[in-house]
């Protein structure tokens, strides 16, 4: 039923959350493979969104609303997906580091990654190293994302990476960092696995890191 998949993808693109949920249910009722619904319906739609966002045709609010529709579809689909019931992309813990209250960029990155199928665990702002460690222990994510907007709090990214190391958790996750003052050079220097300058490239980065 290629037609139904296309409908899911295009409704997702338009951010029609109720329709997406209904269509996913319909596909399941018709006996389609949940994995196909995920790949050819939801993720295919989100891919289109990602492309047009990068091309400058879609604006941030449209992407976020499409991501919300993706969620609605996932909520229907999740119980039918194999082990864990996720998209297979895995979990990602994000937060703004200790001492820093800037969260607009972090929230954008979170919503974009969510849209790309990652299961996001948001620790909010002013997150201490211990908070990250507790969350990694509890949720076993593939990725940890840290945000800092102040030069004075960037050092806490390094401290968090060191604390993960000491807790013996560093090798279990990939760490990505971002925020206006953060550069790729700084990311390399503190031993992070990657850096992205904006939310769209954060999605590419996250995909590359878990590949």
């Amino acid at each position, binding site marked *: 039923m290629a037609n139904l998949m296309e409908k899911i993808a295009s409704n997702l693109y338009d951010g029609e959350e109720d329709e997406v949920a209904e269509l996913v249910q319909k596909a399941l009722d018709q006996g389609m493979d949940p994995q196909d619904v995920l790949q050819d319906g939801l993720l295919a739609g989100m891919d289109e969104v990602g492309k047009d966002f990068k091309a*400058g045709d879609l*604006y*941030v*609010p449209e992407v976020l609303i499409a991501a919300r529709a993706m969620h609605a579809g996932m909520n229907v689909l999740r119980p039918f997906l194999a082990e864990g019931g996720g998209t297979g992309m895995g979990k990602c813990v994000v937060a703004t580091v200790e001492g820093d*209250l800037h969260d*607009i*960029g972090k929230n*954008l990155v979170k919503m974009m990654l969510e849209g790309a199928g990652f299961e996001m665990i948001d620790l909010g702002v002013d997150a201490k190293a211990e908070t990250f460690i507790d969350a990694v222990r509890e949720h076993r994510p593939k990725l940890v994302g840290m945000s800092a907007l*102040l*030069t*004075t709090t960037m050092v806490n990214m390094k401290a968090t990476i060191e604390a993960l190391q000491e807790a013996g958790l560093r090798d279990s996750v990939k760490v990505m960092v971002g925020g*206006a*003052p953060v550069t790729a050079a700084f990311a390399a220097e503190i031993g992070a696995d990657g850096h992205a300058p*904006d*939310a*769209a490239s954060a999605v590419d980065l996250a995909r590359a890191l878990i590949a």
Partner: protein
Amino acid sequence: MARAGLEGGQYQPLTQAQIEDIHAASLKVLAETGVHVENERALALYRAGGAQVDGSRVLISAAMVEAALASTPARVLLAGRDPQQDVVLEGRRVYAGTGGSPTMVLDPGADTLRPATLRDVADMARLADALAHCDFVVVPIHPTDVPEADVPVNRFYACLSNTTKHVMGGVGSVEGARAVIEAAEMVVGGPDALRARPIVSAITSWMVSPLHLDTGVTDILLTWCEQGLPVALSSAPMAGSTSPVTLAGTLVQLNAEQLSGVVLTQLVRPGTPVLAGYIPGVADMRTGGYLGGAIEFGMMQAAAAQMAHFYCVPIYGSGGMTDAKLPDAQAGYEKMATLMLAAMGGCNYIHHAFGMLTNMNAASLEQALIDNEVVGMAARVLRGVEVTEASLAAEAIARVGPGGHYLMDDHTLRFMRSEFFYPAVADRQNRATWEAQGKQDTRARAVAQVARLLERHTAPGLPQAVDEAVRHRFRIHTFDAT
């Protein structure tokens, strides 16, 4: 004699009816949505002042706003160490100066940034001291080579010792606020002298838009107000992400935020000299990023000035920002547009006007020199077309008569220096001369001039005894040339 402070207000994007619509909508926001406050001291003050407090939600009535506005000074003196550098904020008088706390610097001629140092703060302050159109110094940079606890007093020291103009800035923490006040008291000779002639003032970014008070910065705000010194409130929403996407909607929210802040300052200490700090940013809907150079920023800044004039509260605003990465053509037109609109809007205290690039993320000396010209041109516009018996030139026209010329007429000699703005950086030579002199663009010329200017303009410094006392009392870090 204070600095001139020319009259703005020629550009009025809002009609009187629209001002009243925004006012009414803001009061509704304050009364029905309210602000979120976790700071205990602020909650207690709001409650005592008659606000309806439900948990951390504070609803503010129109009557509270009225009462606060009644005790808010319409005129605020921000003194310079040199009284000739005083700025007096009132009505539609316009002043422009430095500002922003970037932690990165673009070196003269460079295309990549480097971390800022205390030396950069001192250099920019000294340049600001030298620039004719720069009315005040808002601490222009956040140094990265000083331990954070020492930053507030060191930033102010670096500025105060390099300029005799007024110095305003963020003070980092309650301890930072106390240190800055104590140091300033030492400079002017005691607490009373500082209250009489406040040579320093604080910026408090107490509002996390939308409508959410930051607990820590609110502590700084309350501490500063208790001291009876001038304070600038600052809320900087971004239209489209942290405030409504429409210009009118952003103005309503920003206005409500400012009124909630003005109320708080007057509850702490009635009569607190407060500048309503409207910073109407814009979010790039294509990326979510912050835009400083958007034309709508300038439009909203002028509209915000109209709101502040409506309340008779001096306004702290922004102009002359750009999203450009270098002092290039984009920097030129974005800066001119946003600065001119803010100035023609009658915004009293326009910071960010000198030396800022990449919206708020980098500072550049040669850009500050170019900006001096932008502000100078805006000042010429504010001066307007002077129409007097003499300027009408009827006699000169009769004297010269049909077919003559004015080049040698007395009237020309009398007015030619004052009537026109003469730029220092712009190149007005003929092309051949320009080519012969190395075909330099604006930036290259500005780089050369900055070097000359900084060589010539020595730091005013502090009186030796005061300087020693301040250095003895506080951990002052060195920023001397190596």
